[in-house]
């Protein structure tokens, strides 16, 4: 059961270089396609600037799209009128990375949680407070917090409020953009648990955007790895960690620090930095850092291919029938 399908999504930015120079086009999201099944947690993984957050925002139409289709329950979101999209937002919500910036400092918790109910006209006004109290209890806060402002809470508590705001309308789909990366270690696990519980309780579907592979491994079902605006590998989470195909995925997984000092990690250290997205390398954009780069990689863009059942990757190592690691 597909809840959301993304087809050939593109998001290009233009950067003006001055009056007499041509504009530079940055391909933040470049021809990305995937689909999310109802009830699953789908992860977008990659390093800063790879386009994972932009992809998340385009799905909710929080930023413009250059081309492509986003089918949510079969409807193309990009074709909806602004008003239709606005009312559909009751079903599609978002949890943000920065719990400090994502709550309006001038509003009380009650106002913050009341807002979604009010704008979507859910429940009778007198029932709304009841609903708010219920959701507060679910996320581990209580009645006495109602009239406080966000600055009176710690980062972890704020993220709970942000999650409460997202789930209060009983949505079907939530985009969670790095929801735990701004939190302290001991609080991270609390919030992850909360998200897992809510998913079970409300049958939520998550798009989980993260750079933290150990969190992704723990709580997601399928993963798409992104590099410079493109998906380079897409497969079930367990399979990805057990048998990564794309050299970038391999390097990414190997770069995760060990969890025990005795654990010996065979590490693939990539050379160099992520190239400037305004001026990406030719061919396979990863070839400048790839330990297995071949001649063909410099000139030909590898296509996303299903190399094993359900395991998609874009790498010449596999399309050339040369099975190498």
């Amino acid at each position, binding site marked *: 059961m597909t809840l959301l399908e993304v087809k050939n999504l593109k998001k290009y930015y233009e950067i003006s270089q*001055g*009056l*007499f*120079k041509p504009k530079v086009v940055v391909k933040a999201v470049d021809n990305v396609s995937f689909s999310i099944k109802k009830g699953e947690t789908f992860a977008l993984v990659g390093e800063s600037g790879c386009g994972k957050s932009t992809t998340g925002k385009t799905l909710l139409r929080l930023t413009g799209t250059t081309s492509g289709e986003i089918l949510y329950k079969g409807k193309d979101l990009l074709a909806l009128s602004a008003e239709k999209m606005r009312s559909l937002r009751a079903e599609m919500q978002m949890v943000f990375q920065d719990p400090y910036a994502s709550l309006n400092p001038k509003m009380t918790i009650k106002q913050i949680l009341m807002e979604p109910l009010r704008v979507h006209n859910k429940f009778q006004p007198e029932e709304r407070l009841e609903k708010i109290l219920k959701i507060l209890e679910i996320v581990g806060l209580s009645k006495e917090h109602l009239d406080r402002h966000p600055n009176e809470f710690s980062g972890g508590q704020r993220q709970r409020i942000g999650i409460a705001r997202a789930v209060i309308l009983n949505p079907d789909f939530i985009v969670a953009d790095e929801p735990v990366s701004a939190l302290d270690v001991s609080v991270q696990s609390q919030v992850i648990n909360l998200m897992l519980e809510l998913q079970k309780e409300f049958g939520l579907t998550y798009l989980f955007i993260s750079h933290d592979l150990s969190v992704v491994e723990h709580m997601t079902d399928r993963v798409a790895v992104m590099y410079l605006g493109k998906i380079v590998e897409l497969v079930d989470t367990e399979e990805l960690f057990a048998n990564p195909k794309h050299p970038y995925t391999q390097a990414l997984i190997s770069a995760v620090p060990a969890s025990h000092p005795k654990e010996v990690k065979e590490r693939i250290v990539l050379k160099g930095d992520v190239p400037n997205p305004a001026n990406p390398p030719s061919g396979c954009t990863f070839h400048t850092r790839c330990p297995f780069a071949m001649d063909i990689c410099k000139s030909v863009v590898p296509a996303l291919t299903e190399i094993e059942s359900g395991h998609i990757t874009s790498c010449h190592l596999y399309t050339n029938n040369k099975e190498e690691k």
Partner: protein
Amino acid sequence: MLDFIVKRVVQVVIVVFLALTVVFFLIRLSGDPTTLFLPPDAPKEQIEEYRELLGFNRPLYVQYAEFMKGAVHGDFGESLRSGEDALGLVMARMPATFQLAISALALSLIIAIPLGVLSAYKRNTLFDKASVGITVIGQAIPNFWFGLILIFIFAAQLKLFPSSGGGSVKHMVLPVITLALYSVSRFVRFTRSAMLDVLSKDYIRTTKAAGTPTSTLIMKYALKNSLIPIITLIALDLGVLLGGAVITEAVFSWPGVGRLLQQSLMNRDFPIVLAGVFIIAIIYAVINFITDILYAYVNPQIRVK
């Protein structure tokens, strides 16, 4: 670079054009000035004759087009009073105003930057508090009144300097001090806060961690960083300085553009006002241009672009 200059020149043209247009219509809206030159009981025919002579009887847009055509060639008409070329009159007064404004700017910078830096370095000491206190008061003093007080003390009582007129260095002392007062106060406060801002930056901690002594830290490193915002402020304040010059010139009867403009406004001698507006808008644009270049010089992030 070419890009930058073209953009800038276009901008200046727009600014000057709009400024002239607005002032032109403002002036015309306030009625025509013919009545000012004639006795109040002048016969109607005489007024009409005069209006025709000065061209005020034509439709407004014709007058505007005529005016703009002249302005492009630097012709703003003749003074309604003296009949001399308006732009020429303004230009003749420029040197005196420049003398005043530049001396005041130089004086403010010489005093304000060291004071501001020292104040930031000795934050919360008696010295810092005193300098902040003086600048707060300095900003509250209207400069024309400060000028009057200086005249009272140094011209009327002590008879050290002349109270009005221009021509010698002695004539300059009181007007320059008067004009510098406000800028000094602003510059000290701003240098101090720019410096404090820079001193709290991570990269200053890095330099400190290299074992750099505080004096080097401030004089070599932090000062260069804080110059970026300081230059911006100075550019912004040059407008205030030019405006202040108008008032200061009035107080000291300084023979500059400001005094000319004030008198022309009083006399409704509008060709001169328009010529003055034209010149000031251009000067201001030039100053902004220079600031941008200076800015690029101290800020490598812009330079490399």
